């Protein structure tokens, strides 16, 4: 008689523990969802987000993750995009001003830009523009800035319209505050000046500002920007800056395939005297 009673007491204590362990606590399940999404495991991420939503139906982050997982599934279908749109619109409708609501608005514009089978550029431009107007200082909203620059600059429009768009982006840059938005909007504009207009005069200050801020993260990108800054400085006759960027290039990438030629170019340049670096553009 004693054994069954003891068994029921132990079972009563252990069952909730076992149940809770099986579910995982909502915060760690949510974290696992983001980790899986970060590793491009959309299916596993979706399961984790579903579990987190079941445990805490009020979790807007879990619903955001669930929506984004639809966009990462290997089958890129109109149905998956529509499922993501529906969930993101719900999040935005409930609260457009918290971080999740702003992220939902941003990803709705991303869907128009890259996830639709036929992208809708005007809708994406309108979405980014509205987001930046509504929340100009919030980091998530500022992710819209480089996207807006891409859509406006890499478009087949007459020269006057292109210049108007350049002015729009140039006006936007000083209003940005997050390092990623400032860096990438500047670099997109600078690259467009070089690729589409061969315009070193307007590109160089943007490259130089990014290098001065030291916000470039990836070595391949830093390699390209240092080289372009040195070459643009050369085109503009700013030899002290050319030396400075080439020397930084060599210290960062001493074994690069271009290093030997850069050593030769440096040897042919006048040695900079103290304080001869041109004023920051």
């Amino acid at each position, binding site marked *: 008689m004693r054994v069954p009673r003891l068994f029921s007491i132990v079972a009563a204590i252990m069952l909730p523990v076992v149940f809770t362990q099986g579910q995982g606590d909502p915060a760690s399940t949510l974290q696992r969802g*983001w*980790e899986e999404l*970060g*590793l491009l495991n959309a299916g596993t991420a979706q399961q984790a987000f579903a579990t987190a939503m079941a445990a805490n139906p009020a979790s807007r982050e879990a619903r955001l993750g669930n929506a984004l997982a639809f966009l990462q599934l290997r089958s890129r279908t109109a149905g998956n995009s529509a499922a993501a749109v529906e969930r993101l619109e719900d999040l935005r409708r409930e609260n457009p001003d918290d971080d999740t609501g702003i992220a939902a608005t941003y990803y709705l514009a991303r869907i128009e830009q890259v996830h639709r089978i036929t992208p809708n550029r005007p809708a994406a431009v309108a979405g980014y523009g509205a987001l930046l107007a509504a929340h100009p200082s919030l980091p998530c909203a500022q992710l819209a800035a480089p996207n807006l620059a891409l859509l406006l600059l890499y478009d087949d429009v007459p020269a006057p319209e292109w210049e108007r768009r350049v002015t729009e982006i140039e006006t936007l840059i000083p209003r940005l505050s997050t390092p990623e938005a400032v860096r990438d909007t500047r670099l997109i504009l600078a690259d467009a000046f070089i690729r589409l207009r061969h315009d070193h005069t307007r590109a160089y200050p943007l490259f130089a500002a990014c290098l001065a801020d030291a916000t470039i993260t*990836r070595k391949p990108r830093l390699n390209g920007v240092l080289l372009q800054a040195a070459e643009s400085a*050369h085109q503009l006759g700013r030899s002290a800056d050319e030396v400075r960027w080439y020397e930084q290039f060599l210290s960062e990438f001493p074994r690069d395939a271009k290093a030997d030629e850069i050593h030769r170019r440096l040897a042919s340049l006048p040695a900079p005297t103290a304080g001869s670096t041109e004023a920051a553009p």
Partner: protein
Amino acid sequence: MIRSRRFRQLGVVVLVTAFAFACYHVTRRAVQRQSRVTLRFAHWQLEGGIRDAFDAIARDYEVLHPGIHIAQQLIPETIYTSWGTTQIIGGVAPDLMEIGKSMGGPEVYSYFLPITEETDQRNPYNAGTPLAGLPWRNTYTGSMDGLNNTEIYGASVFASTTRIYYNVNLLREITGSEEPPRTFEQLLALCAQVRAHAARTGHVLAPLAGSRLYGIVMMDDLLRSQTQRLACEMNPGLRFPTDNTELYLAYLNRQWSLDHPGIRGGAELMRLVSREMPPGFMQFGREESLFYFVQGRALMLMAFSQDATSILRQVNFPVGVFRDPLPEPAATGFGANLVGPNSEGALNVYGPFGIPRSSPHPALAIDFLRFLTSQTENQKFSRLSGSLPVIVGVEPEGFAKNFMPDGHGFPPAPSLLIGGAGQAFLKQLHWLTGADASSDVFLHALAGELGAGMRADLDSHRRALQRFVALNDGSIEAARQMLRGPAAAPARSRKYQGLVENQNEQEATAYYIQLRLKQAGRMP
């Protein structure tokens, strides 16, 4: 009676003891076998030296870790792509796989675990060496995986250069000297001497043992030397050669044509070198051209540095190597198409070993990778395989010293013999061989095909970029979410910044290609 009974009892005790002892040993072995972990790694490097070097390093690792067995899977190059794709998509891949050969298509990296965070940490197997305090990724002389992604997906031990191997005895017999040619003109003169010698003696002897692969590599080197100035002219921002994307967009937008002196020079050099290889060389496999050389039926063979061990094991004559001589910069002729002498650049690694997401033992795979790429083991790998070392402080030994890249000079132009554009070149290559070979006819035929090949390459590149950025939206948001909280690690912040930066850079390239292709479509 009593003695006899005791004797029987003793016999039973001995038998029971022996049985128990045998049971113990059999059971222990079975348990050991069951508890032993096997780590499998697969690659396509079938060169003899490489296989042996991996075996030696695997045995070293097993001595350090007695419960672990390392198994090497050698997959022939010709089936590696289909085999590897099936393995990774089927979720049954080995613990480590050499990444490359377009395995898995454009989304290959989504099937492998990023090891970026691990590469920021020290490699414990470098303890006691000058590299002990360095992050793992900084122990490489150049790139760690050669893949140029935001994340690092693997660690390589392979680096390659190309050289011309030559039969020292034959060279002495033909020229009276063991000195190899140093300039392109001397190479052509030597080839003429070889042909004259073959005609005079009646020996079957070609100047160069060509194959489809080696022939293409040699012609590519020559073509890239000639398009160096063209690739610089087409670079919108730099006084350096541009990449394939920019070069193709410029061609489709009529900024250059096949009448450019660099292209004409390249085609002519390809014709000149084609005639020095045996007839029908484009039908030969790599092994056949190697066989041609080791049999003494060709004086020279253009091959990779990693072929050295296989070649040296098969020949019964002394072998020398020299760098493929290219035209030198000059005011006229082929030299006018060069800005500077062609540099081989930095040591480029290839074929990194990545960890498939389905790996049964990812932690063990990382540990073995660290061991394999430690300074001590890389020295051993280089010595046994004859490969070029990739780790800082490891010097090549013996014959491998001949293969270190020559970084002096000007970067070469990008290769035009790859992808759809490359197929267009190779399809018309027959116009450059045989008695009626003509570079004019070749270029005329090429003009009808090249644009379509370039457009297909650019479209494919643009689609891959767009697919990549679409997949990465979720990863970026995940990285942003994981930045929350007071203890967000600097590594997480760096990862987020890198993902956003890469996304915007790749997307800009995709839009640029789209715009310039649209403009090219309006060309009359």
